């Protein structure tokens, strides 16, 4: 844990990507299994050990030190975990074990410990650690660890241990579990490539960049296909033949979480060996329902027959990744699209259909389709069109967000996906709820606040956000709470606004006019929220730098 805590201390203060990579690589090289694998799991958000609430930590420290001195300390430092890690008065007892605490000890012990026993356990751990280890430990236990390293960056460091490409890691990542011993062995050349024996595995999703005005001048319309982007949840429906010849099926969220159990209706429809990238929607009498209808089917472990009848789930397919055991991802989009059309047509279901291509020969024609989707193939479902996807005909399907092959062009550009960072109690009727929200977007590996919103949500949504805030508080400043907002854990808010200006008052350099919460994106991991560049692209031209 000592080496891990030193790594975290350095990562927190290292701005450069290359510096971070070096630190991670050196740590992976010098740290044995299973410790390094657990560290990788922590950094990539695969190992969540939230077992301590701030109130419990306060009780612990106040049983050891004067509350006034603690308050003065907390006031100065401003972060609860850090204050406790620094001020924790060690018991000078010779019988305390002096050995280093290991992540594996922590993980194994926590599993066997009841909630009631946790405080004593944490206290004993704090006693045997130095302040750097205490800090790492407390951040781990409160779920507030933020070191500015994305899962992708950690995997990149891992890939660099050998001569591998990070996409090779992404490819097998979802079949693996911490502490990833076979993965380390493979990248270091001491073991075989870990095989994913799941016949219906998750394939890392390909994402698009928002298109910028000047992109159009550089790109040739003839090189691209365009399809509607539907307002639902991006999913991957995967079916493959097991060794015994049966068809195994799965439905994955874009981060690879299997949500098939909540969608038996769709799984039944997916009756062929293929993997489809598409949009999860609810269709009633052939019409795409608004997002809040779809929401009835989300975040459920199981689903009733009644629910399935009332809200029939549907997939609108965008892409075909695998068919009859053949991986198509290296093929050009034009080829995949052709096969997708045939594959979808061959299914004996109406629950899976295809997102129609938009016909165009100039960018102006694409712009017109974006303006009035109803007249360009979306028909009565035009309201459910979120925008257009522009895909190079020659593009392979690659994991992550490569620059160049795919672009998205949103219909309403004045909205962003931002991450909730701070919440404040409201006034009057709302004073018992956290109803004022500060949200941020990514700049490099860091979130920068870009605005505040007080309205736009329903009463039910207010309660949901309030619950999230209370359960995920990592800091308090008077009436304000800071909530967890790491790459993996946090709440993504779709924020709509009237306009955008340059501002020197905000760290981000931009200020929104009339921002409001358009939607809660529980389905989106914070890492996929928008980046500051997408906001800057919306600035009036004279305001851009």
């Amino acid at each position: 844990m000592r080496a891990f805590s030193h790594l975290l201390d350095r990562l927190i203060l290292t701005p450069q990507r290359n510096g971070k990579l070096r630190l991670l690589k050196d740590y992976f090289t010098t740290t044995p299994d299973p410790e390094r694998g657990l560290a990788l799991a922590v950094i990539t958000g695969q190992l969540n050990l939230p077992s301590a609430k701030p109130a419990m930590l306060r009780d612990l420290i106040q049983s050891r030190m004067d509350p006034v001195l603690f308050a003065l300390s907390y006031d100065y430092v401003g972060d609860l975990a850090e204050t406790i890690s620094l001020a924790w008065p060690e018991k000078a007892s010779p019988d305390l074990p002096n050995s280093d605490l290991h992540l594996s000890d922590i993980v194994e012990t926590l599993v066997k410990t009841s909630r009631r026993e946790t405080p004593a356990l944490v206290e004993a751990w704090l006693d045997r650690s130095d302040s750097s280890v205490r800090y790492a430990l407390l951040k781990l236990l409160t779920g507030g660890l933020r070191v500015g390293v994305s899962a992708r960056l950690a995997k990149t460091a891992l890939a660099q241990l050998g001569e591998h490409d990070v996409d090779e890691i992404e490819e097998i990542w979802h079949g693996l579990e911490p502490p990833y011993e076979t993965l380390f062995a493979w990248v270091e050349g001491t073991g075989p490539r870990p095989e994913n024996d799941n016949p219906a595995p998750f394939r890392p999703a390909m994402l698009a960049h928002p298109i910028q005005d000047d992109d159009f001048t550089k790109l040739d319309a003839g090189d691209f296909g365009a399809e509607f982007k539907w307002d639902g949840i991006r999913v991957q429906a995967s079916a493959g033949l097991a060794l015994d010849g049966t068809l195994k099926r799965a439905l994955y969220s874009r981060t690879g979480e299997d949500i098939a159990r909540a969608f038996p209706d769709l799984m039944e429809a997916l009756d062929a060996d293929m993997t489809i990238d598409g949009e999860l929607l609810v269709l009633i009498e052939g019409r795409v329902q608004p997002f809040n209808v779809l929401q009835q089917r989300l975040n459920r472990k199981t689903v009733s027959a009644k629910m399935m009848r009332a809200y029939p789930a549907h997939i609108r397919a965008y892409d075909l990744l695998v068919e009859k055991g053949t991986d198509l991802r290296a093929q050009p989009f034009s080829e995949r699209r052709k096969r997708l059309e045939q594959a979808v047509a061959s299914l004996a279901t109406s629950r899976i259909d295809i997102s129609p291509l938009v016909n165009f020969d100039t960018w102006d024609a694409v712009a017109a389709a974006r303006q009035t989707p109803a007249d360009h193939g979306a028909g009565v479902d035009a309201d459910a069109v979120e925008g257009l996807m522009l895909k190079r005909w020659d593009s392979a399907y690659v994991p992550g967000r490569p620059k160049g092959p795919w672009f998205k062009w949103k219909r309403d550009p004045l909205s962003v996906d931002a991450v909730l960072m701070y919440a404040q109690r409201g006034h009057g009727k709302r004073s018992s709820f956290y109803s004022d929200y500060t949200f941020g977007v990514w700049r490099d590996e860091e979130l920068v606040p870009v605005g505040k919103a007080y309205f736009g949500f329903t009463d039910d949504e207010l309660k949901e956000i309030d619950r999230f805030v209370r359960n995920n508080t990592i800091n308090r400043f008077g009436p304000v709470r800071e909530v967890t907002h790491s790459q993996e854990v946090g709440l993504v808010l779709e924020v709509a606004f009237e306009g955008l200006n340059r501002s020197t008052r905000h760290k981000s350099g931009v200020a929104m006019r009339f921002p409001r919460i358009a939607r809660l994106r529980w389905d989106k991991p914070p890492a996929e929220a928008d980046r500051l560049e997408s906001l800057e692209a919306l600035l009036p031209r004279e305001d851009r730098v």
Partner: protein
Amino acid sequence: MRFDDWLHPTPKGLYCPPGDFYIDPVKPVARALITHGHADHARPGHTSVLASQQTLDIMALRYGEGHAEHTQDIAYGVQQTIGDVSVSFHPAGHVLGSAQIAVNYKGKRIVASGDYKRADDPTCLSFEPVPCDVFITEATFALPVFRHPDDRQEIQKLLTSVAQFPERAHLVGAYALGKAQRVIALLREAGYDETIFIHGAMQKLCDYYQSQGVDLGPLAPATLEKGKKGNFAGAIVVGPPSAFADKWARRFPDPIAAFASGWMQVRQRAKQRGVELPLILSDHCDWDELLATIREIDPEEVWITHGREDALTRWCELNNYTARPLSLVGYEEEAE
């Protein structure tokens, strides 16, 4: 009579009426007794100054020989009568030449410790506890969160980073008097024998430390021959923290900003300053050292000067020491 009657704060500094002198005055006065050479304690323009020889030397280096009309040096432990009081100077362990000043009057003693620390320091004499009735302590790091780690462990962090990033220069921000020399001496102790590059503002003081027997090893000015940015790859460069923000710092290849300071204990503070490699090295007492010193000296009263007076006052109350914040002005909290 009350202690207050023969030593008390004034706008010019701590004043002793029966001896008619000030300790570390912040304005020019007729007679000044000076604990150590840091600029907020040792100022130019006094008529006469009494201080350790090394403090006088340092003042002359910084302000020129004519910084006072008259100077007199005093050795550690020697009693000297001034008016109706007698004074003596004792090592404070803060920087080279630093002293606590003991003032004796009518059988009672007040010790003004100036700035001090208890941790070992290869560049100066260690703090000597002096029994007294009133102990005046600084409170720069008087919060329970300030617990300075072992200085050798901190220097090891720097050496580890130099080994890990051999193509980059490591710029170490350190105050020119005391901290810079301590960083260099600790690097030497750890076996680092490469040339260490220093900012021009540190040359005179480093030379002076060497002349006083503090071995700093090979030093060279951090100046650049044209077009040779690569010269500093893998090098350690020590400079005053203020220099790192300006053009001077841009001459180095892809530098890693380190900063040797007790303030580096708090991550947010390091982050705000753009410090990548915080080195928690302080020439002041941390919380535990302050408490241990008060317990060891066990004075009748504790007077608390610059820094976090509220926390230490609280602790004194809880532990039955009569405590009094002095609220002296003119000492910079940031200075080390």
